[in-house]
Each structure stands twice: as structure tokens, then as C-alpha cells.
């Protein structure tokens, strides 16, 4: 992740810009459990973050500090939340924020906080952001076609901003690349889903009990991992048929 653009990774205590701030160490009490052997850079960054956060300083340097803290612990929802407060206070350019998120996306593609933050940005950019956002998600899916967060975000964008008309083609393309991509099968493209639901909603076994029992017989031998399940299923069917 490239967080060094602004401060070069120098210790904060040696930077003139931070001279007026007293870092605030954590108070873990007299007998902490599962203490972590923090590296110096981490400890220092979070001590400065605590100071800025407590003082509620919403400044450009605070924004840069949140980026540094995000790099070190990208799951820290408190840091992300404070970043949003600072972005609002500074009336920051949210297109730039989307660019920042895209740059760190690959090393944070499974990070709930990043995706939530992204959603927050897109909500503020509105319908204009739709095409760009759908494309950004495609890029992530091109690296990992089953990324659950990416699919979840994609569904949200489509529901909030529209665009379903092109989605079936996209899923078809993904399935041509990998027919076993269950995420692509799941995408609620309605024509496909409606027919699957119709197949599944009957109370009785759609194949008829005799054929079902024969299938369970076969599976008991062919799918030996689940043999006991197929036996139970077959016996349950014969009870139901009476």
C-alpha cells in the first residue's frame, strides 16, 4: 500500500509539523491481557492519532495521519470514521478519495471498513459515480472473481444507482471464464432467478418419490462422503410417500 506519498514514513516526533502535539499513549491498565508487541512506528502513529482524535482536530495534517494509521491497521473503524469527519470538515474532493481507495484496494480487497468507506463516498457522489464505480468493481473482480465484498458492493450500487440492464451480460462473461463461479450464478439477474425459484418452491419432491429414492440409492454409493446422509434421505422419502 502506498502511504508514503505525503510524509516519507519519517517518525512523527522528528517532524516539525507535529512539534506542537503531545502524543497520547494508550492506557491498558496495570495487568493487560494479550498485549501486542507493537513496532515503534505503529505505537507512535497511534499515539499521535489518539491525541488528534481526542482534540477533534479536523485538519489536512489529521487527514494525512489517518492515511498513515490506515496503512498500519486498515481494519480500525475508529480511524476510518474520523477520516470521514475530516473529509467533511475540509469539504474534500471525493473523486480524489475514490482514487485513493482504488490505489489501496488490492491490498485491502477483503476489508469491511474500506468497502463501507467506499460506499459512503459513492453515496455522496450520487448517480454520476455509477459507471466509474461499476468499472472499479470489475477491476477487483478481474483479480478475484469471487470476492464477496466486491459482489456485495456491486449489488448495492446496482440497487441504489441502477444499471441492471447490463448485468446479465457481465455475469455471462464471467461464467464463460469459469462456469463454477458461484458468485456470478448468484447475482440476481431476474429471468434466471425466477426460473430457479419456480423449480424449488414445490412442497413435494419434483422428481416423484420412486425416482428420488433411486437417485439416493445411486448417490449412496457414488458420493461415499455423504453416504449416511443419502441413506437417511432415502428413508425419509419412503416415509413421506406413505
Amino acid at each position, binding site marked *: *500500500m502506498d502511504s508514503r506519498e505525503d510524509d516519507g514514513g519519517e517518525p512523527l516526533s522528528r517532524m516539525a509539523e507535529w512539534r506542537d502535539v503531545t502524543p*497520547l499513549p*494508550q*492506557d*491498558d*491498565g496495570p*495487568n493487560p*491481557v*494479550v*498485549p*501486542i*508487541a*507493537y*513496532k515503534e512506528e*505503529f505505537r507512535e502513529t*497511534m499515539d499521535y*492519532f*489518539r491525541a488528534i*482524535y*481526542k482534540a477533534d482536530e479536523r485538519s489536512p495534517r489529521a487527514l494525512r495521519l489517518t492515511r498513515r494509521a490506515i496503512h*498500519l*491497521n*486498515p*481494519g*480500525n*473503524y*475508529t*480511524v476510518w*470514521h474520523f477520516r*470521514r469527519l475530516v473529509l467533511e470538515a475540509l469539504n474534500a474532493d471525493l473523486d480524489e478519495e475514490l482514487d485513493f481507495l482504488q490505489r489501496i484496494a488490492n491490498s*485491502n480487497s*477483503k*476489508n*469491511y471498513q474500506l*468497502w*463501507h468507506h467506499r*460506499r*459512503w463516498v459513492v453515496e455522496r457522489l450520487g448517480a454520476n459515480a455509477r459507471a466509474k464505480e461499476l468499472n472499479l468493481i470489475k477491476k477487483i473482480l478481474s*483479480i478475484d472473481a*469471487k*470476492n*464477496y465484498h466486491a*459482489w*456485495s458492493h456491486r*449489488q448495492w450500487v446496482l440497487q441504489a444507482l441502477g444499471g441492471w440492464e447490463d448485468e446479465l451480460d457481465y455475469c455471462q462473461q464471467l461464467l464463460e471464464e469459469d462456469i*463454477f*463461479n*458461484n*458468485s456470478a450464478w*448468484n447475482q*440476481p439477474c431476474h429471468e434466471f432467478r425466477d426460473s*430457479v*425459484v419456480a423449480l*424449488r418452491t414445490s412442497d413435494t419432491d419434483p422428481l416423484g418419490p420412486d425416482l428420488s429414492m433411486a437417485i439416493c440409492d445411486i448417490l449412496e454409493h457414488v458420493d*461415499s*462422503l*455423504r453416504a*449416511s*446422509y443419502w441413506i*437417511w434421505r432415502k428413508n425419509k422419502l419412503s416415509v413421506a410417500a406413505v
Partner: protein
Amino acid sequence: MATREWNPLDFDIGEEEDEEGTPSPSSISPPLQYFDRDRHVAFLEMMYNLMPHHYQSQEINRLTLAFFTISGLHLLRALDRVDKDRVADWVLSFQAHPRSRAELKIGQFYGFHGSRTSQFPPDENGVSARNAGHLASTYCALAILKTVGFNLLTIDKESILISLRNLQQPDGSFMPVDVGAETDLRFVYCAAAICFMLEDWSGMDREKAKEYILKCQSYDGGFGLMPGLESHGGGTYCAVASLRLMGYIEDDLLSKTVTSSIINVPLLLDWCMQRQAIDGGFQGRANKPSDTCYAFWIGAVLRILGGYKFIDKIALHRFLLTCQSEFGGFSKYPRDLPDIYHAYYGYTAFSLLEEPGLNPLCAELGMTDLTAIGII
């Protein structure tokens, strides 16, 4: 350890399932043919005393790390390794306290902080800046307190329960923190578990939560983390365990002759059974590689339904041993480096398999039966 695994406890671990199971050459010796309890106890003891710097990216989840460690030791019948009073005092120090009862309804959640990131000592007026109680941390805090035998009746449970309502959304789902975050089944589960442990359902609208859960059942029988999302082992666990805790489904459903249930049980059972792969392990979604933790997430669902007896236990046991680390703990994939999250769910999986020397598991709470019932 930059990227995120799914987890109701919002835990952030190593790479998720995109590498298709490529093992790292961390161990050249063949896997042990047995569950090595002593090695695991040593692993957890080390974590209890000091976690390696790699876990600093998990800073925000200190309480979750503590839960895995302490509950893990209890599963291994090694709780004597911890100083229970010290643990209770430390956990209690994370609780957020309102200044007055009036504060409970204006929007904030007075549960437990997950870490010291945003926890500050009160100023001269007794005001604590920045309450950041989190649902998952609260679940972990209560679970740890119960594990070490602390009497939950003595904590300020009213503040937790009254303010818990602030986190429930109109659609029945829960947000984990009051300042805004994603809402999904993970946090419905945390809320249900919190109310269950505090023995008080005034903290949530169960009916609305149930409605949300039912909307998450997918066309193939499993549950996604949110309505419309792909069926997922973790989502399915959160759904079924929550329904069980809230009292909407009975124990051991399969052995009863109930003809109807609020969820499609046959389809759910099918989905769960299909998740055991040819290597014996469990996958989290169709056509994904087997991963240690799903032996718990999906195994526990089967246990709740009464269908655990159908799985191939020998094959699962064999798979899990390939994920057992020579350093103690378990890894996500075979022959990889261990982490505390997969270690914990490896232990719960072995408990479900009734491994000798382990305490039995309460499937719907994800901790020992003894803790769930309240026996020290």
C-alpha cells in the same frame, strides 16, 4: 496480515480464499496424526502473555483476540493457565459508561470498546470523550467474563440493553457501532448472543431481526450475509444460531416430525451437506477451497439442526490435521502458518468431533457448554 477474513467478530486475518489453497513451505515435516493438545495450550499461553507484532493490524480487536485465547484455553481444559480476576478486571475496563440515564436513548451504544484506540480516561468533570462501544467487542467481553466465572448480574446491563436498541435498523438488521458501519447478519448474531447471555431480550426487537434473517435465505438453501447475497458458511451460521438463540427454531429439528418451519430446512440441510469437499474439509461457499474455520461455521449449523451425524467425520478429522501447525494453532489452509482465529475455530471443530480431552461446545454461542450454562 493485511486483508480480511469474514467473521461475526469482525476479525481481520490473513488472505481470504483467493489463492486457491497455495500452501507456503513453512513446515517440511509430515502432519501429526493426532490432535496435539499440549502444543496448542503452549500456543495460547504465549498469546495470553504477548502477541507477536504481526497482530498489531488487529489492534482494534484486542478483546476478540482475548476471547479466542481465553475461550480457547477453556476448550482445551487449560483455563488454570489464566488469572481469572486479572482477566475480569481488564475486560471490565473496556466498558463504556453513560454519565446519566438520559444519555442512553440519544443514539450511542454503551457496550464495550474493542481496544484502547479511542478510549480515554475521564476528564476532571468525569466525562469520557469518545464512546465507541462495538457489538462484536461486547459479545467477546461478555463471553470472556462468563468464561472466567464473573457474575454478569453485577455489571450495568441496563445501559447495554437500552442502548443496544439504538443499533437496530428499520429492516431488523444491526449496525455494530453508532457512528455508522455496514449492517449484516454478523451483527444480528452478536446482538442475539448479547441478549441471550444477559438473559434479557429487551435489547432488541426479535421479530424484526427474524424477518431480516429470513430474507437472507438464498435460493439454494444457505444464507447470505445480507439479502440477495451468495450463500455463505458464516452467514448461514449467524442466521441459524440467531434463530436458535432467539427461540424461533427448536433444537435438533431433524429428529422432530414438524412439517413446517420458518426456514426451508431440507434445502438448508442439502446446502450444508454439499459443503464438505472431497479433501474432507468444509468450504464456505460452493466451489471454493476448504478452510479450517468452516468446519465450525457449517459443522455448528449441522449440530444445531441435528444433522452433524451425516458428515464424514474421519475425512474431516484428516483434513483438519493437515492444518494443524507444528507451532501450535491451526492455519486456514493445509501446511500454512497458524493464526489465532483459525486456531480457535480449529479447536471448536475438534470439540464438535468430540476429540478426547476437549470440553464440549455450545454450538449456538461458539463457546464451551460449561460457560454457556454458567458452570465454572
